């Protein structure tokens, strides 16, 4: 019958799909690269190693959050985040969370590198050594930050395993691991790189941070010996003026904070990756993400919220930073005689820009005859001085298009002046001898670069003063105060002369609340932050 035939055909139609179902339902993600096709070639591992550098540059870290938090905590900088400046914050402060995340992102990537690497990867022995050195260096560096900022966060030597809860570690085990990593890096890293690779970690960088770690642990002799090794490498020197002109004195120093090289009539002072640079976070405006803002993945510091760039600070910027214009200026020396005839420490001119000051010291600059207007400062910050250090170069000359969002200037994480002063301090505390010649020489080398007379003997006060001036607005100040408080140089009342609302808990940051919640009671808040 005809109808039976239709029925048969339709039943057949109804169920024919079955045979091809599995193929029909099996789809490949067209948007992303499957993990199974990765971690095979040398190039894959080059890519992985490079990602280990990035978290330092994230907006969570030196891209923005770390900068903002440290300027707000710095007693020489006035920041409009009053509560943070008055140390009135807790474990919910977003910047604290950001920094914690950035540090552990770096650690995760380094851990993953070691986990995924195997001998089948075609890499030359030399490249393998240096690559391992870089990753060990970075893992050591991240753990150094984890140790001094958070004291007791977890210690992970392997990549995170989902659904696992990691308990607190101790500051000692964090520091011990960081020390081992940096030592490994010292052994593996080259002293220098060819010009195409500048920016990668070097032996000197690993030694300098190892020394700083010893200094933070008050291991004076190890610190001094390690800094000595950096000095003995012979590849670093201060950016010194070539002529005894005032502009040379200012620019030789300012070149350490500039994107562009700074010219005087006598010389051009190299800026980024110069001889004084030991390790820099490399920034650029060249590659940005689609929303035009950098910092998350990309090179370039996001500067919304800081007194950084030409564009933001003067035309319409977020004027949320100014300088302490009451106490701090008096800290700068007024030399009775200076080789260039300056009446103040040259660093004074590099640190402050006052209302009425020229915007640019270069006489041929179109901005030379423009001065800072009072309207360009935030009157509620109650200061008549801005921060000049990071104004160089002016973006009108560099890459105006990206200026509002991105500051492409490298962040100098370690400069040779710091190595010299830390060496001197470590040696002084080791020997307790204010006239120990190598310490005195290192200390005075930093002073002579700016044309100041040498000191005859080292004292606690001399170190506190010199670091205050030399590293003004460089994120050193607050943690120096903490370090000196913890090592007995400053009492809590002395610290409070600088930071009136300082509490014992403020020697570190709280572990972010989000993370304590994530860890379901396994991770505890640092006891210092519990009351």
């Amino acid at each position, binding site marked *: 019958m005809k109808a039976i035939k*239709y*029925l048969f055909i*339709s039943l057949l139609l109804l*169920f024919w799909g079955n045979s091809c179902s599995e193929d*029909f*339902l099996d789809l490949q*993600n*067209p*948007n*992303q*690269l*499957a*993990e199974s096709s*990765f971690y095979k070639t040398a190039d894959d591992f080059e*890519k992985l190693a*490079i990602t280990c550098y*990035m978290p330092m540059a994230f907006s969570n870290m030196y891209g923005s959050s770390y900068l903002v938090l440290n300027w707000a905590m710095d007693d020489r900088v006035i920041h*409009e*985040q*009053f*509560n943070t400046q*008055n140390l*009135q914050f*807790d*474990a919910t402060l977003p910047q604290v*969370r950001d920094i914690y*995340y950035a540090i552990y992102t770096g650690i995760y*990537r380094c851990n*993953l590198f070691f986990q995924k690497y195997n001998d089948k990867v075609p890499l030359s022995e030399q490249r393998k050594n240096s690559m391992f050195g870089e990753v060990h260096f970075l893992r050591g560096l991240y753990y150094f930050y984890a140790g001094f900022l958070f004291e007791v966060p977890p210690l992970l030597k392997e*990549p*995170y395993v*989902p*659904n696992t809860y990691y308990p607190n570690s101790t500051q000692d085990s964090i520091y011990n691991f960081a020390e081992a990593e940096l030592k490994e890096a010292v052994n593996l890293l080259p002293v220098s790189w060819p*010009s*195409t*690779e*500048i920016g990668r970690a070097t032996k000197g960088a690993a030694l300098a941070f190892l020394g700083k770690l010893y200094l933070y642990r008050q291991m004076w002799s190890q610190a001094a010996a390690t800094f000595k090794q950096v000095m003995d490498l012979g590849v670093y020197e201060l950016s010194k003026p070539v002529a005894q002109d005032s502009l040379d004195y200012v620019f030789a120093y300012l070149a350490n904070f500039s994107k562009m090289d700074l010219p005087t009539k006598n010389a051009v002072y190299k800026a980024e990756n110069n001889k004084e640079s030991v390790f820099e976070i*490399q920034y650029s405006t060249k590659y940005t993400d*689609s929303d*035009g803002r950098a910092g998350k*993945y*990309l*090179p370039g510091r996001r500067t919304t919220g800081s007194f950084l760039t030409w564009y933001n600070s003067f*035309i*319409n*910027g977020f004027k949320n930073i100014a300088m302490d214009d009451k106490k701090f200026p008096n800290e700068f020396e007024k030399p009775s005689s200076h080789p260039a005839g300056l009446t103040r420490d040259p660093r004074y001119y590099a640190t402050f820009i006052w209302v009425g000051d020229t915007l640019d010291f270069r006489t041929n600059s179109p901005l030379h005859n423009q001065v800072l207007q009072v*309207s360009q400062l*935030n*009157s*509620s910050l*109650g200061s008549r001085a801005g921060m000049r250090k990071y104004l160089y170069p002016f973006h009108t000359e560099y890459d105006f*298009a990206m200026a*509002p969002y991105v500051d492409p200037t490298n962040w100098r994480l370690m400069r040779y002046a710091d190595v010299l002063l830390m060496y001197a301090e470590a040696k002084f505390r080791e020997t307790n001898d204010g006239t120990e010649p190598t310490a005195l020489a290192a200390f005075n080398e930093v002073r002579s670069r700016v044309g100041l007379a040498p000191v005859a003997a080292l004292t606690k006060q001399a170190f506190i003063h010199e670091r205050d001036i030399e590293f003004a607005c460089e994120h050193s100040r607050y943690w120096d105060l903490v370090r000196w408080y913890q090592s007995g140089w400053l009492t809590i009342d002395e610290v409070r002369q600088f930071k*009136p*609302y300082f509490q014992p808990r403020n020697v570190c940051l709280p572990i972010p609340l*989000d*993370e304590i919640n*994530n860890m*379901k009671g396994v991770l505890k808040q640092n006891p210092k932050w*519990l009351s």
Partner: protein
Amino acid sequence: MKKCKSAGNRLLGGLILWLTCGSLLFGQQLVTGTVTDAQDNSPLIGASVYLKGTTIGTTTDVDGKYSIQTTSPSDVIVFQYVGYQPQEVQVGDKKVINVALAVESKLLDELVVIGYGTVKKKDLTGSVSVVSAAELKKSNMTSLGSALQGRAAGVIISNTSGNPGASVSIRVRGVGSINRGAQPLVVIDGIPVGTGGGALTGLNPEDIESVQVLKDASAAAIYGTEGANGVILIQTKKGSSGAPVVTFRVQSGFAQLPKRMDILNADEYCNYYKAAYEEYNRTHPQAPRTMPLAYTPERRAEFGNVSTDWQDLITVNQAWNQNYYLSASGGNEKATYMLSGNYLEENGVLITTWRRALSLKANTDFKITDKFRIGENISFGTSQNRNQADQQGNPWVTAAIASPLMPVYNPDARGGYQGPDEYITGTNERTNTYAELMLNKNTGRGNSFFSSLYAELDLLKGLTFKNSLGLMYNNSRGTTWRPVYDLAQRSNPTNFLQESSYEGTKIVWDEQLTYTNQFGLHNLTATAVHSMQKSHSDYIQASNANFQYENLQVLGQGDPLSAAASQFKGDVRFESYLARVLYDYNSRYFLTASVRRDGSSRFGKNNRWGTFPSVSVAWKFNEDLLKSLTWLDMAKVRFGYGQTGNADIGDYLYDAYISGSMEHVYTLGSPERAVFGAAPFYNIPSPNVKWESVNMTNFGIDVNMFGNKIQASIEYYNKLQDNLLVQLPLPLISGMSGDATPPWVNLGKMHNRGLEALVTYKHSAGNFRYEITGNITTISNKVDYLPAGDIIQDYNTALVGHAIGAIYGYVAERILQESDFVTDQNGHAVMNADGTYTPLFPKQQDRTSPGDIKFKDLNKDGVVNELDRTLIGKVIPDLVYGLTFNATYKAFDFSFALLGEQGVDVYNYYRSRAGLASGDNTSKDENKLREVLNYWTPDNPVKNQTRISITDENNNGRTSSWWIEDGSFLRLRDIQLGYTLPENLSKKLSISRLRVYAGATNLLTLTKYSGYDPEVRSSDILNTNIDGGNYPVPRSFTFGVTVDF
């Protein structure tokens, strides 16, 4: 099949009548009589009385009387009245004909669409809500989603925004998922089109014949892995055989903001901050702050002492809209058709926002032979809109907090507007939101095409094979343009253009075999279906910047170095088999059983297929047990159980990926060069990922009484949700939480239980006839298990043992008074040298002072910290209810609809920002609500406002119960009054019907909530009931005319 004569026959009849009417005059006779209601014998006024097959007719008067001239004894008089069964009487030799019309019981024989078939409404075994075209007509809404609000028990529809064209959030019987899609599947004319309010966008209520919501799993199981959140089945209007009907409707009206916030003006603002700085400096002797000069009279005078009301600037007083609809339908026994077109223009109450939409629709059905039928349904819609532009902050909030000292315009600035400038506005650098709305453009265009074809063949007696193919195509374009403009601190120095394009196609192919037969008293319908679905989507976004000519807004004109592009593709496939049996014995005992087997590309390889069974039974027990109760028309009990799944879980969750190198660039070398990296594990793999499952039982009783005047049903449902997808959290130390998708596991458990009741009462007294329908829904939701423990977000949470979405925070007790601190002999709190006060209560912050909020030390450890947080608000209402009233009196009709929610909270973030005297953490001297002027001081120890400051040192603005408000409301959702021209008048105008009407929407809302609108919902349960400055749903007034030809 309807009993109507075909159009051809009627036309022929009419012609014959016209040709012969002269010769038939001798047989004429006057017939009179009364038309009454069969139930209560009350006269029916305005009933139409006409000679069948002619245009000769009249209507009854106020006593129900009529008189009509007949032409021959063979004439048939037709008596018709809306809502009653028509009657036909042959004249014969009668001179008086009295008729009593019975109330139409057609409602009971109404067919309900249940997916892959229909049943009579009275024979339903599962839980299905039905909303008819007649009800939709009573709504003034232009979108289907809003029109359905409050009209179906168990279905909670909420507005998410007042933006023209904004979609609604729809939840059927509680919350179906924690993290994944929780909105019901929408099926239009048998084709599954998508989920939730988005799938309803663009549907015109006028085109809808009926809406069914499959609520329980025994009904929804037929949709397997797409049925877990309920299914909305929409039938669009089809033509019916008979004379062509042409309908034209024009509607116009306007919308306005129902409420304004009371914000400080410039004088109040300056005085307020003068006091705030003085107070701050008094308590911070070691770190005083200088008040910005901008707040001084001298500086203000420089700028003309402006006082800008931003709220006023960004809103439109009367946002007009208009809506035109034209349709034609008709057909004969072989073919029917329905064509319609609609044009809609709507303006938003926020300046610059608008939407325009045009849609056309056609469907036809053909009987090729007695056994073979084909048909199609095609619609095409196109729309354009302008949405709220990208803003540096939400405009509603910014309008409250921006400085009133900022002038709106500045002719010297590029763009013409003044922005926040420290010199003029001090620390307050909140943007000129009016300028940003005007300058920045965010426009969209969209086209949607829907088509379905079917062919149906009767193979044997009762056996039908149907093959249908659905094809959908959507594209949308979005354009964002930002010109260069100067707004001082909020300037945009670089112009920017972004174009985004989305394209989606979906093909659904169903083959269905249906067998229907009757064996004595046994009725059987069996259905088997094979279905395949394939969708593809492709999203492309491109942008460029630095355009030399701002009038030339095409991507190629920007700076090539600034050009950027991205793309995202998606593919989803389903394949399903299903079988269902509908059986009843003697129309008293019912059984429905179904099973569906679904496979999907979304599930991990280990779990590609799932099986979803269901069974439900019903018993009409009145004829067995209560036959003596004559007033009882019908009584039925129902029980159902079924399993469904939720496949709305996202694509490709099962695999692990590396994120692309373009996102990870570092620079090395001198000169700089880019080095690309790769971030590992962008997705943590979840190879076992599968659908979320629902096990649901449903128990219901339906009763019709007193000649179906009262119809009631009540049901209880228990919905157990298992295998809910939960993301194992990636802690910060994983190093991946920013970039990566954490792994998904099917481990969560949750349940929703509740009662739904629906009662309809109809009554007619003379010319006055009315109908009241009320519905009530209760929901009790609880999270039963979460594998990785509680989920706590900034506001909303998922806590085991509690309802999902509950708001979490501190418990605010009261305002701290001086006596809460160490006091001197006069009873005044003693300020220490550093400006602090010594508390006599558990420590909160270092600088907690009198006038701050006291938070509860819940764990009594002497410190108020994050451990002292608890549940402070609920986001799922205890009770949702709706009431509709429809009445007619003579030519007038009147209707209103109420909508209410009880037992729900709203977190008023807006007020925590703008209504807090103690400043905020950013210390931006934001403008405030006027209520802050009554700030706490020792001399004014108020209990509802904090002390004054410029920075919130006690963190009074933290998430706490201080900002929780009762979000219960009762809203007059719709009200409409219509007048239909009497038939004798409209006939003179050569039209068959003319109705004019006026209505209002959201005319009245009774609530204690202090914000713009208590209905603050989002479709994301973990980010809902937070009033962060939502676009308020406006109040609107509507006027319209409908004409049928």
